[in-house]
Structures are given as structure tokens and as C-alpha cells.
């Protein structure tokens, strides 16, 4: 690539971090810029449950020390919001009206926790767990031995649940269609998996058997735990905090004016290229065309995401490689009676 090339990566998660490393390695003279909403450098989001094991210093979670980016001549624009991408001019417009020109762009802006629209009224009473700041807020709000009411129960949530149980907290799971997301599970598997969760010490409430779900979430009355979840059949549960784990939704809002193909995520071909030949997407934000399945689909898990960051960066610098899933997606129960998910295996 030309020494004048400017590669820009939006997002500082696993895909973005891998991409800037690959870009630097393959195009030593180019300008490489990473733009991120996060105030922190790339950190291990999968390790956030460690906060409940006492790891509360953000530096321990960083994927690379800050000096790494200086050494690699990678410009990191932290706490910076992208407002729009003007593909006709090759410009990224930031929310403070600054514009950044790009030659190639990788969108690796990731996902955020999905809160179902029917719970939107209660969002101020629900804790999220997407960022380090979210995790610290939860850790501060949750007393020792306190109870978490977990709504949904996707695999990120269940990963946190097992840490919470290990650290002496209590967890009530309000299960529903998003439990075990993104794994597809059959009815038979689901019953067995619920049994395992119960054996792990999680109180499992089937959302369908309590009148079809949640009627309200309220602040608890004085002298009671801080939150009350009311079910449609009139029953309720008290907890110190309520957390939502209903899967992820891609963060693509800033790309809506760019003219790219977007369904839920940004649609890319197997080379991770969007409908604009200068723009690629990687990680949880993209839906990749699958020739086998004849459809666009998401691939989750840190190995997949890292592989996408690498492939996208390689293709941005002249390669023509297709993404191949780097991990299986099966959910199983081990002979020891424990849940085994590839999404829980991370470095």
C-alpha cells in the first residue's frame, strides 16, 4: 500500500484491536487511526466478571499497555463519537464536527446489550454490563451476598452468573427466549440446561410460566431490596439489582447515512467487504454472507471476532481472503454435568 494511505478503524474491541495490529504489520508506513467511544484503550471485555473477584483496576484489563499504540504509531482517538460516514467524500464526521479523511475504513464498532422494547420504560432501573464502567457500577451497587435478578440470560449473562455464584452472591434468572443466546437450543436441551443452571445454584424462573413475563420493574419499598420485578400473574421477586441479558444489537447508527447495505448489522461478503469497496466491517457489527446457509449471519465469540479483525485488515491491505469461522458454536453439557460453551473459552 502507499505510504500515504490512511487506514481508519472505528471501534476498539477485539476486532478493532486485532485489525490495527495487522494493518501496522502489513503496511508499516501508513497512517493508522483507531476511533473509539470508550475512554479506555482496548480491554478484555470478556474478563469483566473478574471485577467481582476483586480486579477493579482498569489497567489489569487492558489488552495492551497504552505505550503499545505509541510504539506502533497507531493514533487512538478515545471518547470520540462518530456522527456519520460520508462515503462520497471519504470522510468520517465526528460528533464535534471534526472530519477525518480515510482511504480504507474498518467498522468494528461492536454491539451493545439489547433491551427489549417492552422493557424500555424500566431502563433506568436496569443495570447493564457492556463496558468497564457498567461493570463497576454493578459492583458498587451490589452488596456482599446480594441478589441479582437477571433478565433474559444470554451466554454473557450466564458467564457473569457463574462468577456471581462463585463469589457468594445470589442470582435469580428470569428465563425466556433469549436464555442461552446466541446458541440455538431445542426444547429437550433447554430443560436439561435449566437443570444444570439450577444445580449451579441459580434460581431459575421460567418467564413463560409467570403469566407470560414481566409486568413491571419497580424500586423496592423501604427496608426491602432495591428492586422488585412484578410478573403478569401477580407474583414477584426482589433483588438488589436487575440486569438485562437479551443478546446483542449491532452499533450501526452512525453508518445509516453512509449508503451501505445494512439489515440488523452491516452486510458484508465473506471477505468482510461492504457494498463500498473501501469499507470493511468486522466483529459483532457485521452479518457475513454464508454460501452454505444462503443467508447473512452473525458470528460471535472472541476467536471469531479476532479472526474477522485480522482478515479485514489483511484485505484492506491488498489480500483477498475469506473469513472462516474460528470456533464452533455448540452448547453442551459435560460428563461432569457442567455447561460447556465455546463462548466461555477466552484467554
Amino acid at each position: 500500500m502507499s505510504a500515504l494511505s490512511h487506514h481508519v478503524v472505528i471501534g476498539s474491541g477485539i476486532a478493532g484491536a486485532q485489525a490495527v495490529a495487522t494493518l501496522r504489520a502489513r503496511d508499516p508506513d501508513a497512517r493508522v487511526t483507531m476511533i473509539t467511544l470508550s475512554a479506555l484503550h482496548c480491554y478484555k471485555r470478556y474478563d469483566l466478571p473478574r471485577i467481582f473477584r476483586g480486579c477493579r483496576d482498569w489497567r489489569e484489563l487492558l489488552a495492551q499497555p497504552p505505550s503499545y499504540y505509541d510504539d506502533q504509531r497507531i493514533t487512538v482517538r478515545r471518547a470520540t463519537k462518530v456522527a456519520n460516514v460520508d462515503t462520497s467524500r471519504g470522510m468520517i464526521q465526528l460528533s464535534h464536527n471534526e472530519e477525518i479523511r480515510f482511504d480504507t475504513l474498518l467498522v468494528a464498532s461492536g454491539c451493545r446489550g439489547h433491551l427489549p422494547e417492552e422493557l424500555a420504560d424500566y431502563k433506568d432501573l436496569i443495570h447493564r454490563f457492556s463496558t468497564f464502567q457498567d461493570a463497576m457500577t454493578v459492583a458498587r451497587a451490589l452488596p456482599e451476598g446480594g441478589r441479582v435478578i437477571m433478565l433474559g440470560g444470554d451466554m454473557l449473562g450466564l458467564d457473569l452468573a457463574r462468577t456471581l455464584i462463585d463469589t457468594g452472591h445470589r442470582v435469580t434468572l428470569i428465563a425466556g427466549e433469549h436464555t442461552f443466546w446466541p446458541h440455538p437450543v431445542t426444547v429437550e436441551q433447554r430443560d436439561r440446561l435449566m437443570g444444570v443452571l439450577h444445580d449451579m445454584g441459580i434460581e431459575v424462573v421460567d418467564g413463560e410460566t409467570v403469566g407470560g413475563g414481566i409486568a413491571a420493574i419497580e424500586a423496592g419499598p423501604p427496608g426491602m431490596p432495591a428492586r422488585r420485578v412484578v410478573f403478569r400473574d401477580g407474583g414477584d421477586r426482589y433483588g438488589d439489582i436487575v440486569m438485562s441479558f437479551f443478546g446483542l444489537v449491532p452499533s450501526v447508527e452512525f453508518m445509516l447515512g453512509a449508503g451501505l447495505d445494512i439489515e440488523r448489522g452491516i452486510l458484508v461478503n465473506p471477505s468482510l467487504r461492504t457494498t463500498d469497496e473501501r469499507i470493511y466491517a468486522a466483529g459483532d457489527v457485521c452479518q457475513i454472507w454464508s454460501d452454505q446457509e444462503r443467508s447473512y449471519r452473525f458470528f460471535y465469540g472472541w476467536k471469531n471476532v479476532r479472526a474477522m479483525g485480522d482478515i479485514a485488515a489483511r484485505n484492506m491491505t491488498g489480500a483477498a481472503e475469506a473469513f472462516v469461522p474460528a470456533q464452533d458454536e455448540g452448547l453442551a453439557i459435560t460428563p461432569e454435568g457442567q455447561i460447556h460453551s465455546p463462548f466461555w473459552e477466552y484467554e
Partner: protein
Amino acid sequence: MLGELPVRPEGVEASTRRAQPVVVSEDPRDVAWVRQNIPCQTACPAGTNVPAYIHQIMERKYGRSYETNREANVLPGVLGRVCSRPCENACRHGWAGNGEPVAICHLKRVAADMKDAAHRITEQLYAPTGKRVAIVGAGPAGVAAAHDLSLFGHDVVIFEREERPGGMLRYGIPVFRLPRDVLEVELHNALRLGVQLKTGVSIGSGPNEVRVSALLQEYDAVLLATGCMAATRLPLRGAWEGREPTDELRDVEYGLDFLMQMHRGERKRVGRRVAVVGAGFTALDCARVAVRLGAAEATIHIRTAEEYIPVTHEEIFEAKREGVRIKGLRTPVGLRTDENDRLTGVEFCQNRLGGWRAGGRRLAIPIEGSEFVEHCDTLIIAIGQQTVNQYLDVKPEIDRGGYVRIADNGMTSVPNLFAAGDFVKGATTAVEAVGHGRRIAQRIDTWLMGWTRRREAVRIAPVAAPLRSRSFDFIPRQAMPVAALNERVRKSELEVETGLDEPVASEEAKRCYLCDLRYEIDVDRCIYCRACIEVAPRNCIKLIKGVEPGAAAGYDKLVETAEWNQVAAIWIDNNECIRCGQCFTACPVRCISISRCELVQVDV
């Protein structure tokens, strides 16, 4: 509250600025300025003077605001609830870097809801002409045209097939989105100027039907405004190719029929798992009605993606809150049934996105070999609507799309026969129908009278001081309050959006940039001190060496320069300007003036 109205800076008196008279200009450059600089009004198919009515709300003059709306659109309370809001898509506040568009539609409703109960309607009546006009169809286009034609002094008779007027507004939109009392009042007001309404009258060639040819003989002009009242058929393939599923399966029906039958009073039923195919308001309405009728699952299947469907984000959000799910990139290709001819599922094929269609929509391209089945027990088809021409016993020229062709004067190829609204344009929106009905009414009047009686002009009035404060720019868009979810299901006709209250409406109104204000620098008095540039929040005040006419007769091409020896003027770029008034306040020699530029209709 974020800020109050700005106070005039100390020592600055409006009277010391150059006095300007109110002028009415027909100069095309002024008209072009309005078209370019008031994007909401330009985008509104009815041409509503949005900044004016929002400013009147800011002043808590709700009745006047309602009347400002009514000058362009006789159904403000209706469209304040169901408009597709092209104005908000164009709003300068929604441009990149400016935040979210003003809630223009919600404010329209505020004007309607908060005006006095004894509000006096203002109408500008012409003397009776003795001309008689028949209008076929009492939908939004027909009603808007009837109102304007009656103002022009013509005797108008509307023929409506249904028992009640309103067309799709009454029979196609659920009550939870449009309460019928609001519709009734505004229809009554629109038609009370002597319009004769004949409902339950079918136009056609049958024994008890009125023929269009007979109307043409009896009236000076006949306007067809029958909309798009036939559902678009669903093209299936395989075993279902060429068959009409609604003829064979009781679990399949068209969304238009579903809603119309319900609003005529029929009791509708749906299964537990309802699939809706389609991507417009009708599809969304059908799914939301299905939830209220007890469906455990209501899923809308769309060919492209949620981002590209012509429905407001708020409607999608509320539908999802009610439990409606939306699944994209799929085209229905077949049906699955059991041995009793009961529907068990819909077969789809996967799509990929193709190119762009008009209006920001996308093409969908089916992928061969990607078929899959979604299980359901009710299918509602809402993929579009078409005109019905069979009732005509005259033969106007029809275009390739099946729509009647009209000339510039609104007339079809049949003398004295005019057409308006969706019947001409295909299925659009209520506001487009109102706007088109209004335009065709004016053309009919011109044709009937032999000359144009009203013409567009720009009223330019001086404004003493800025009407906004910079702090208004930081007010977030105010959310529309909605009814509780459990209440919506319990009372299926409960209006979902409950309306902004007065303090919230006032805050939202402050957000409007008031783009009808034109800020100008008097170059003869400017001392080039740059004070205005220093305080400008955006790149809105420019050093220029020239101004060139643009394509639309306006001065819209500023030739900027960074060289002082080339500067011919300091110029306010009204396209970038957010009317904050900072420059006006900062100017030490008071050479910046403000004028309000409004499109008005003047008598010729």
C-alpha cells in the same frame, strides 16, 4: 427548562436598526430562498408553514398555530397523529452535527389538542361562482379538494361509497392511532362550508350506481379521488403460482380488507401465530391489531431491512413494545397447509439488498435455493394497494403503472374529468393525498374561472431581535408520552400516543431553528470587525468574494475566499445558519438584520 427567550442586548434598541417595511415579493429569488432555506416546508407535500406554527406554539398561541396549519392542511389534528413526517426527515435540526429533528408532527398535534374548545376557524371565502363540482371519494384528497373548492365559491358535492367519510383515514387506520372523534370534528369543519356529502352512493355502471358520464353531464367538473382501494396480490410460486390464497384459505387475508372490515364493524379473529408480510403502515397496523385481538405472536416479514421501510421509528418502536417482531431480508414464495386446508406456515426465500429505489427505499433480490419456512396460523398480506378503475364508464388515459394520467391542469384525457390523490399517484400517504387534493383544487378553480385567482408570493417582514436563545440548541428532542402497555391490550381502542403536555410542548417548540428567519449583513454598514464570526457556533458566516445564482433562481453559491484583499463581503450562509442570534447580538454597528420570509397566497 433550558433558557428563556433572549433579552435584547444592552444598548441595542430595535428602533435604531434600519427600519424595514413589510413587503410581499413575487421575485423568484425570494421564492427560491424559501424553498432552499425552509426544508421542512419544502418537504411537506401540503406545503405547511412549519416554522410559523411552531413559533406560535412557543408563544402559546395554539389557536393561531392551528389556523396556520389549516391554511395548508384541513386535517391538522389527524395528520398530527398519522403523518409520515417527510418534514422531520428534512429538518435542519436533524442534519449531521445538529442533533435530532424537531418533533414537528407532535407539535402539529399540540396545536390541534390545545386550541380553545370554542376556537374560531378562519376561512377566506370567495363569492359564489355558480359552478358545480362533483368529487368521487371522501378520503383525504377528496376532502381537501372539496374544502378548497368550496372556499373558491363553487358548489361541491362529494359521492362516497362507504357509509361515512374519511376514506383510508377512517377505514384503514386503527382507532388506537387515530381516535375517530378527532377525525369527525376535522372532517366536519372541512366540509361545513356548504359541501354536500352523499355517502353510501356507489359510482359505477351497475343498476343502482351513479355513472361518471352522468356526473360529467350534470356538473361543470368532476374530480376522481377514489384512492387505492384494492390490495396488491401476493405473487407466489410453485404449487401456489397463479392461485389466489384468500379464495382457498380462510387463514389468509389482505391487510386492507382486514382493517376495512374491522372498521366497518365486523368482528375479526386471528390465530395464535400471525405472520404479516409487507413493510408499510398497513402491515404495522395489522400486526398491532393482531396483538390486540389476542395473537401470541405477531411477526412482520419484510423484503429489505427495518431501516429502509417507510414507517416512522416511533411506530416501529411502539409496535415492538407491544410484542410485534420484525424479520428482514425475506420474500414469501409459498404457503404450507395441513389436510384441512388450514395454514401452517409461509415459505420464504432469503433476499439480499439490491440498489436504491425512490424515496430512500431498497430493492430486494431473492437468493435462489435459500427457501425456508416460518410457521404461523394466520397470514395477513399487506404489500401494497392499487387503484380500481373498473367503476369508470368513461375511458381516461391510463399510464403503464395503471394510474390515470393527468395534464398540468389536473385534467384527465376526458374533458372536465380531473383526478387527485392516490388515484393518480398510487398509494402514498395521507399528507401527500391532502397536498395533491389541494393543488388539484386550485387547478380546477383556474380551469373553471379561466384565470388563476391566487398566486404564491413571499411575505417579508422585519423582526426586531432574535427569537431564539443559543441555549435552545441543547434541548433534547422531547419524547411522546404513551399509554401503558397493559392498558393498550385491555382497551384495544385506547390511543397509544397521549400527546405532549404544555411544558413539554413549549420545550420542543424552542428547538425549532425557525428557518423562516433570514439573517443578513448590510455590507454597506459592516466594518469587517469579525465579531460575528467570532461568536458564530458554526461555519455560518463567511468571507466571500462573490455570490452566484444557483439552479433554482436563488443565490445559493457562495464563493469563499481566505484572502482579505479579495473579500467583497461578510455573508451569512443561511444554509448553515441555525438562527441562534449570536451574530446579531455581537455586531457593534448593528448591521445585521432579521426578516421573516413566509410563502403566502395572494390574490391576483
